[in-house]
């Protein structure tokens, strides 16, 4: 156990037990999985992606590239960063990308084959031949983590929030900005990634206004949180900055214990980005070995978790940061073997800190190798006098700081390279994004606080001298080591593997190779080498990649440019994206009043468009689908069926210009429709193609009731509403969607009238009640609108009733129909009845080319009307003429042939060639009435080819068929009018 007896924010009274890769360990409340592993001397936490090299913890935050784990105890969550997983009792985690174990990984053989895996290996190797052959092997070896097989037990929710200002990051600068803004009366939201406010002051000692920095921050936070105009969230990561200042953030483990994560959609007028910076690695051979860590991370583990990753350290740096840690390291009992500094000279402060801690410093030195494979044994380095070695079990390195410009970049802001701080810092601004402090490349705390106050005052255009906020003085800081960096790159042709992207195993050699192969754009080098494309998205390594490329190209970093950061800043779980919308709630299914009855009576349910589920057919015990459909269809043709038609769209149109509107919407006329009558109408799109059809009734002079297909209802509503509001704003018509107000049931078949006659009613069902008439009245005391509409080709009554009365009436009809064998009918059966009758379904026979003439519906197109939607395009079709595909009937020679929808239609002579495609089957079924297979199809010039033979060619088989008229049953329509 390497845990200090004192210090840190862990609670030593509350030990927690956990398992990592099957072994049991102990940590404390307040630990992360990473700090607990470190305190237990677990060095190897995972394997790298390509070479399967052993890897240890490198960082202390969300930028961690190595310590990816699969959390097995709390659901099954892949690819979590151990640095971000709070320890809890019974936690169980495993390394990802290791097989069979992290310590002994068989695929580490890739490491010895490394010369075979250069940049672009996959592109180069798998070009020839069949990808599916290779992919089996690659997929087995690829991928970090394992997708969970079980349902995610976690619960999530999403919330929206609006605020004047969002401050991202509750470090000293974020808190200072929040103070000023809150004082000015603005609504302020502060979100912070860590468990408590403080930012980097949680790990570094600095004084603000003569008190320890972290205390200054927490005190300010406590005061701010009490204010009514402040919303404050800890454990919340801003993952993306989107259009119009929308920031999306994930709150981890909110106070409400039933939630795992909550997704915040935050719309702000301005966004203050105070996300700080992350340390970047130095590039040297062996910089990925377990025991080689970032210097600042080690200081963090010591300060916050009292966890010490080694006993003897060599520090390697090109900047001043590491010198501030010397005392921390010493106090933790780490023996400092020396500081190897790439720079030629040190500042007074740095020298002072080194001599105070009695640490030898070697300037102008560079590490040439790290000894030890799975644990560090020492380093070799080169200085002016030659190659030397130092023994150690820990190497801490620091290559400078990367401002976290991710959110700024998501917002559309540019970045620019700042020579002095050797960092990409925010450049040209986009939207309302303002970076301050470390996130702005301002690495001095004092400067950062000043910047925070200034920006906060400027945000809403207030002058700093007239707002209340100006009373807030800029806090005074002490004890800072001023930041100095001299970026010194490794020599070209470096020997040994020096990594620039740890997770994707990209080395200096890969970058050189990419440039040698003439990849010039940084975006191309990134994609070719995959540098910066792993789960960590290049947070620590990106500037190194850009630096190396600029060196290879002999260009300034500024001119090489930078890659664009895209959301998310940190991986986001699918669970939290889904929120509550999972399982049945993804798309809530719409029901009808009869849904429960249908299910209770054995309906096989199926999707039916517009999110409805409805009966497909009603199988009885031992019946196949074919049996059930045949029985139901026969009932409709010979006795009586009942069908739940509620999902159809129903619109009420009301107003003096309704008739004119309908005349323009439909191909036929509705102004001359008598009140009390209905008429079948065909609606086209403006390009003249079939759109929808349905029956519209004229309720009174200015009021019509329109019905349309279930699946098309939304589109038809949008179509009419658009025309009324944008094109024909002079037409006085109200359009109301009443689909959800009505329930519809169709009683159909030769016995339909007899069934209804049994009910007490004030509606006369005598022959004066004609086909397409409707009548209002009551059935068994229930108000109904009865209409003679037929979708089956049989005598049929459509009963429209208020939803609340629907089920009652439905059961009355079922009871009344018993003696006539009334049979509930599903949508598959009604499909069969439709095909038998050759009723065109725009969703089937309309294929975005079909016009009404092709569909044999010229009878319903009134070209004498001055205008209707689609007329102009039909005129063009008529003028062009030429060969078109027409709707035809198809009678296969084999009367029991199984014909699949979509089968090709070929000329009879070309069975084998598969060329000469002339159309396709749009719908096919076995007709129980005709006792044979029938089909509808679109066939080139079909209307003049009745009687000809064609070949129906499906994937499985093909068969000859005779072309016929597309009506197989009762072509004169006498039955439905009867």
């Amino acid at each position, binding site marked *: 156990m390497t845990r200090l007896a004192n210090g840190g924010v862990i609670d030593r009274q509350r030990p927690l037990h956990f398992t990592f890769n099957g072994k049991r360990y102990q940590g404390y409340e307040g630990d992360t999985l990473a700090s607990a592993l470190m305190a237990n001397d677990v060095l190897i936490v995972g394997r790298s992606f390509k070479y399967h090299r052993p890897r240890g913890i490198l960082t202390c935050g969300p930028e961690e590239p190595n310590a990816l784990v699969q959390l097995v105890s709390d659901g099954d969550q892949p690819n979590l960063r151990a640095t971000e997983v709070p320890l809890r009792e019974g936690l169980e985690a495993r390394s990802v990308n290791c097989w069979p174990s992290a310590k002994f990984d068989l695929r580490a053989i890739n490491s010895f084959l490394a010369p075979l895996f250069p940049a672009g290996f996959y592109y180069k190797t798998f070009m020839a031949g069949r990808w599916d052959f290779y992919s089996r092997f690659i997929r087995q070896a690829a991928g970090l983590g394992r997708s969970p097989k079980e349902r995610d037990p976690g619960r999530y929710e999403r919330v929206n929030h609006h605020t004047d200002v969002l401050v991202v990051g509750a470090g000293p600068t974020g808190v200072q900005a929040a103070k000023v803004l809150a004082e000015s009366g603005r609504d302020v939201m502060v979100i912070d990634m860590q468990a408590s406010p403080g930012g980097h002051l949680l790990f570094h000692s600095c004084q603000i206004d003569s008190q320890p920095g972290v205390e200054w921050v927490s005190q300010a936070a406590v005061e701010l949180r009490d204010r009514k105009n402040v919303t404050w969230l800890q454990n919340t990561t801003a993952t993306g900055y989107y*259009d119009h200042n929308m920031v999306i953030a994930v709150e981890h483990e909110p106070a409400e214990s039933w939630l795992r994560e909550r997704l915040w959609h935050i719309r702000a007028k301005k966004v203050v980005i105070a996300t700080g910076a992350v340390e970047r690695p130095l590039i040297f051979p062996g910089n990925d070995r377990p025991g080689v860590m970032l210097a600042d991370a080690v200081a963090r583990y010591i300060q916050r978790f009292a966890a010490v990753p080694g006993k003897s350290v060599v520090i390697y740096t090109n900047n001043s940061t590491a010198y501030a840690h010397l005392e921390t390291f010493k106090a933790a009992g780490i023996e400092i073997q020396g500081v190897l500094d790439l720079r030629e000279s040190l500042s007074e402060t740095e020298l002072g800190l080194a001599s105070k801690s009695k640490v030898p410093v070697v300037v102008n030195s560079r590490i040439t190798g790290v000894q030890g494979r799975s644990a560090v044994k020492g380093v070799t380095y080169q200085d002016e006098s030659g190659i030397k070695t130092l023994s150690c079990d820990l190497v801490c390195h620091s290559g400078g700081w990367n401002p976290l410009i991710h959110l700024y970049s998501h917002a559309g802001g540019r970045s620019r390279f700042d020579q002095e701080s050797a960092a990409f810092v925010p450049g040209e601004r986009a939207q309302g994004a303002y970076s301050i402090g470390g996130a702005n490349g301002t690495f001095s705390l004092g400067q950062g606080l000043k910047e925070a106050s200034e920006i906060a005052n400027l945000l809403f255009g207030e002058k700093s001298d007239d707002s209340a906020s100006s009373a807030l003085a800029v806090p005074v800081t002490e004890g800072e080591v001023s930041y100095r960096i001299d970026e010194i790159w490794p020599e070209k042709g470096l020997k040994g593997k020096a990594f620039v992207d740890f997770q994707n195993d990209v080395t200096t050699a890969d970058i050189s190779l990419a440039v040698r192969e003439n990849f010039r754009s940084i975006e191309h080098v990134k994609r070719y080498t995959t540098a910066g494309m792993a789960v960590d998205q290049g947070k620590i390594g990106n500037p190194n990649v850009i630096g190396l490329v600029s060196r290879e190209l002999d260009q300034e970093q500024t001119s090489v440019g930078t890659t664009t950061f895209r959301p998310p800043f940190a991986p986001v779980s699918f669970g939290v994206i889904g929120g509550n919308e999972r399982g049945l709630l993804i798309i809530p299914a719409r029901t009808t009043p009869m849904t429960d009855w249908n299910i209770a009576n054995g309906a096989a349910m199926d999707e039916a468009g517009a999110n409805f589920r409805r009966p497909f057919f009603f199988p009885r015990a031992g019946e196949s689908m074919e049996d059930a459909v045949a029985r139901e269809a026969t009932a409709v043709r010979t006795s009586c069926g009942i069908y739940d038609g509620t999902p159809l769209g129903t619109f009420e149109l009301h107003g003096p210009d309704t008739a004119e509107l309908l005349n323009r919407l439909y191909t036929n006329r509705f102004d001359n429709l008598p009140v009390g009558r209905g008429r079948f109408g065909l609606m086209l799109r403006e390009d003249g193609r079939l759109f929808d059809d349905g029956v519209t009734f004229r309720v009174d002079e200015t009021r019509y009731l329109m019905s349309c297909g279930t699946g098309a209802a939304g589109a038809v509503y*949008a179509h009419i509403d658009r025309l009324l509001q944008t094109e024909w704003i002079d037409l006085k018509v109200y359009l109301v969607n009443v689909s959800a107000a009505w329930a519809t049931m169709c009683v159909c078949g030769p016995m339909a009238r007899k069934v209804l006659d049994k009910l007490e009613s004030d509606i006369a069902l005598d022959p004066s009640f004609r086909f397409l008439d409707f009548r209002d009245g009551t059935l068994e005391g229930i108000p109904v609108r009865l209409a003679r509409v037929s979708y089956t080709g049989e005598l049929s009554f459509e009963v429209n009733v208020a939803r609340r009365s629907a089920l009652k009436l439905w059961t009355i009809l079922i009871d009344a129909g018993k003696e006539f064998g009334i049979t509930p009918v599903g949508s598959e059966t009604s499909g069969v009845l439709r095909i038998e009758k050759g009723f065109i379904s725009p969703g089937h026979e309309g294929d975005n080319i079909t016009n009404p003439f092709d569909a044999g519906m010229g009878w319903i197109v009134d070209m004498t009307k001055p205008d209707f939607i689609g007329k102009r395009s039909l005129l063009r079709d008529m003028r062009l003429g030429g060969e078109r595909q027409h709707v035809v009937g198809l009678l296969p020679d084999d009367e029991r042939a199984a014909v699949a929808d979509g089968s090709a239609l070929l000329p009879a002579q070309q069975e084998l060639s598969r060329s000469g495609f002339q159309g396709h089957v749009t719908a096919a079924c076995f007709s129980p009435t005709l006792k044979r297979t029938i089909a509808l199809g679109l066939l080139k010039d079909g209307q003049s080819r009745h009687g000809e033979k064609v070949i129906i060619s499906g994937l499985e088989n093909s068969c000859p068929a005779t072309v016929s008229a597309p009506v197989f049953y009762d072509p004169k329509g006498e039955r439905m009018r009867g």
Partner: protein
Amino acid sequence: MLEIPCPWCGPRNESEFVCAGEADRKRPSDPEAETEEAWADYLFNSTNPKGVVREWWWHVSGCTRWFQIDRDTVTHEITPVEESSK
């Protein structure tokens, strides 16, 4: 997620709306007088500029109003369009 200013409801999230394309594509008052080219142009072509475009938006999950905005396709800056009195 854009924030769309509905003239009736005020600023609301884009997800409540449908963008219905460019507003200067007006249906010809006499389609039959249009040449084939002009008609095809009306049916199928948008100008799709890099810059400001006037668009129809439909507040389908709100008040169901259709209205116009000017949207910069580069910056996504949105300017409401004054509605002419009907």
